[in-house]
């Protein structure tokens, strides 16, 4: 989703920018499980391009399982994509007005290289931060999206455990997801160093 953010940042306040930021705000507002339903109605029921609800076992049919994962992944990913688009946009706007961009321009570097190689790289730090936060949202959203697509994952496990009052399983799932979030945040913190050598 970075390209859309870069596109929007070219002319802040321009027509493309306003269109894309509105679209991104709309993307954030759509409940992911409802998006999943709409994708099922359109692509599984009407067009028949993808299998409907009911997961395919990864061991039996790896390709089929991947195929079946397209719709849930889309449903789950859109919100994050919209959020990242907004982050890239604001970071790019800031970077494109920075001194080093003017220097590059004075040196005669082509616009494309300035935008994609230099400004985008410097905009990646806030994107890393937001990606770390998104993981937490993704894990939470997966619970409901799994219910929509009938996938037996952590989400359906915790819902089932709740209905059976299986407290130990619930505790385990809650702790495990917290661990996933913590691990991702650790990776994000490490990646800061790689993205910006000035950070020690």
């Amino acid at each position, binding site marked *: 989703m970075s390209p859309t953010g870069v596109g929007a940042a070219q002319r802040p306040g321009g027509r493309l920018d306003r269109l894309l930021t509105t679209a991104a705000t709309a993307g954030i507002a759509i*409940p992911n499980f409802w998006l999943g339903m709409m994708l099922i109605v359109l692509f599984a029921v009407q067009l028949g391009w993808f299998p409907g609800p009911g997961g395919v076992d990864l061991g039996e049919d790896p390709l089929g399982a991947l195929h079946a994962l397209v719709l849930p992944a889309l449903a789950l990913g859109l919100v994050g994509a919209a959020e990242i688009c907004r982050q890239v946009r604001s970071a790019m706007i800031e970077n494109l007005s920075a001194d080093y961009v003017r220097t590059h321009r004075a040196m005669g570097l082509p616009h494309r290289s300035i935008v994609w190689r230099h400004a985008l790289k410097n905009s990646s730090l806030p994107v890393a931060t937001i990606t770390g936060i998104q993981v937490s949202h993704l894990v*939470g959203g997966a619970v409901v999206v799994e219910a929509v697509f009938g996938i037996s994952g952590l989400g359906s496990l915790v819902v089932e455990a709740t209905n059976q009052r299986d407290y130990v399983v619930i505790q385990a*799932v809650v702790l495990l997801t917290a661990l996933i979030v913590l691990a991702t945040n650790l990776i994000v913190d490490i990646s800061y160093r790689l993205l910006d050598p000035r950070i020690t």
Partner: protein
Amino acid sequence: MSVTLSRAVRTTPRRPAVVWFSYAVLAVVAVVVLLADLLAPHAPNEQNLTAILQSPSWQHPLGTDDLGRDVLSRMIHGTRVSILAAAWAVGIAVVVGFPLGVLTGYVRGVTDAAVMRVLDALMAFPALVLAIGITAMLGPDIMTAMTAVGVVLTPVIVRLARAQTMAITQQTYIEAARSFGARGARRMIIPHVVPNVVQPIVAQVAVLAGFALIAEASLSFVQLGVQPPTASWGTVLARSYTFLELAPWSTVVPGAAIALTVFSLNILGEEIQRMLDPRRR
């Protein structure tokens, strides 16, 4: 600081159409919440087993569900339930989070460190998963579910209020007030600090309300929130999903209602923030 706000409103350039659209959506939602009983053509739980899963018609503008209940009426009554549920969650977050944030930001030191470590731990849990965990412990019920959501949202308010308080207390006028002997909650925090912390919180509340709405729908969808037969956006959506292939239209409206309302709340939040941002005036 109320002067700043009114001046900002007056000199703000023409608002884009999308902002007016959002205000209109929120106004419609507010009217529906207030006048649900007058607007709904049928009782929300009135069953008619001779007219199940009907397509939209004049009598049932959004069709009927698998028990012959009017989907439009259920949506209208569900709006009230969903909005109140979201308001409850955000209310808890503000009532607990705001004083805590101002206090930790003002006092700092050990209190601040202790409270922030607890909140850091709380924030490590994915919001929805933790809400499910809390709901599971206390039993599935909309009040406990939304209380759990409120607990999950609290750290957001605390952090914002704390950061704002810390920034405010560095200002010269606070120093001046202190030099006049203003101390404590009644002389210092309430008259001088709180008014300047409120504004960014208001913008955040709009955004959090959107999150709480989605949380209500999500939790109700997996049957941990609003319990059937009570109508809410989440339960209407959950019910209509079970007959998705027979009546796909009845899943469109509840979801679109959620998406539109959350979108409008986010735009409202952005607008408030824009009005308060002195650089964009």
